[in-house]
């Protein structure tokens, strides 16, 4: 009986230790993906459909200006989240998707910047360029666009 109590006590201690050693559970919602463009970008909003289509290689114009999508590197966390949330593509499917699109002649992938920071700088410098960003990467040469009229982080924001 004593040994059983000891065993239960040991298990409780082990469980308590595990709880203490485990990293605290993330309680905050993930940071929303911001859609950003240079200051000359026409307007302050883009529809989710246009955003998706331009990053799928379709020719999209807004306010008479041709939109130029700029991607982050394939392995960048924000790129993975963007491909998943906007294009519905898991990381393993992204390359296959673009190879297949090229064989069908249905579109070519957007320009990929070598770093998220460079993607922001291109968006800031090239009229019509658009990319996505984390809040920490923003600068004064960029403006954050609403998507379907919703600001990032507000209820109904289209990019999950």
């Amino acid at each position, binding site marked *: 009986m004593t040994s059983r109590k000891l065993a239960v006590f040991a298990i409780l201690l082990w469980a308590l230790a595990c709880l203490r050693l485990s990293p605290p559970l993330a309680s905050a919602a993930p940071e929303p993906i911001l859609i950003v463009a240079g200051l000359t970008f026409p307007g302050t909003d883009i529809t989710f459909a246009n955003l998706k289509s331009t990053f799928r290689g379709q020719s999209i114009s807004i306010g008479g200006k041709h939109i130029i999508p700029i991607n982050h590197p394939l392995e960048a966390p924000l790129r993975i989240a963007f491909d998943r949330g906007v294009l519905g593509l898991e990381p393993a499917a992204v390359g296959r998707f673009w190879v297949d699109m090229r064989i069908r002649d249905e579109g070519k992938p957007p320009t990929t910047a070598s770093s998220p920071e460079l993607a922001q700088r291109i968006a*800031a*410098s*090239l009229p019509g360029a658009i990319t996505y960003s984390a*809040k920490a990467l923003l600068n004064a040469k960029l403006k954050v666009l609403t998507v379907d009229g919703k600001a990032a982080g507000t209820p109904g924001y289209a990019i999950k």
Partner: protein
Amino acid sequence: MEAQPAPVPEAAPAEEVELTDAELAAMGLSTEPGSASAAVDTSLKFSGFADVGFISPALPTSSEFNGAGAVNRHTSFYVGNLNLYLTKNLTSSIRMMGEIRFMLLPNGSPDPDSATGQLINTNVDDYTDFGRPIQWGGINIQRLYIEWTAYRALQFRAGQYLTPYGIWNVDHGSPTIVPVQKPFIIGQQLFPERQVGLEVLGQFDASAHNSLGYDLTLSNGTGPVSTYKDFDRNKAVTGRAWWRFDGFGELRIGGSAYYGRYTAATNTAGLAEDGVHVKYTEHIQSSYDVLSLAADLKWTYGGLLVQSELITQQRKYIESARIGALNPLLGEYLAPNDKLSWGAYGLIGYRFEWFGVMPYLLVQRLDTNDAVNSGRTVTNGFSAGLNVRPIDALVFKIEYDEGHFPKGSLISADPVRLIQGQIAWAF
């Protein structure tokens, strides 16, 4: 709906964030005057795909199918497609696309002028190698068009294009297509695989997750030299409409129609009635109207792929052009009959993340009815295989195919069984 205000960046870093024109140009991006030309890469791009494979009959030695048509008696390795793409943007809205297939053919294919089944031999002496023999091959222009994108919803193409119907014909390349073998309804070209003429196409978004698209074509239709000559006045028309919903995986449903006239003819020179001039007389060898209708569905959800196409084709001869020939197998003169063909296939597969492995299963049927003597040919088939795509541009396929003829066939009522393998890659 009024747009909510966008958040304002908190702070700008001290360093310069804007890139110079030279820096942008180094990345293939440009801010040249005239916003229409900004960011256009006008270089000529080469890409394409290729494949090699093997085909092995899984037939008893007594099977009548041994050596029949494409069913070789022995396992054979082969070089399949070598398709080179050439693309170039001429401006921000005008581009060209060409696709050339390099082939080993016609070497080894049956000689149509031979009654004894001789094969075409392209052996020639190679003057760069002391006249030693070398076999020449051919090229096939698969696509060549110039495209103008006025808007996303309004694009124009002129030239030779893949007929915009269904899924398989547009997927087109062996790395993109899951199985090794085409379904019967695609291989039998119930719709023409490609056409020469004009194409108008476009797509637009109906909502965040719903898109609609269309294709309209006007072409020479089909014929022995339809790539550059039409032997009748009837231009062929194709129409297609599709709907894509990407709110739950991606679902695409489409419908297509084709109407055109096939005509084969020759023009022979002779002396005109006045005995002075030369007069060309047209001799129609064959002519019939074709109406093809198709429906297609493709749904992907994660690794799951479900794909199906249903196609019908009605073929009705022009009476004055219902010209028969001596059937070498039956030894009888046979005139062609009007036909109704229909068929379908269903493909299901699941791609695992582990090495990109996708097991798949394809079931299919082709049913052809002869309108005059009620003859009917039915072919049922199924294929099971593995498609392994360890990297994006490289695919390994191994497949077992079985075909059944419940109404018999000209050769035998026995089933046909094949094992095929393929390595396909994009470059």
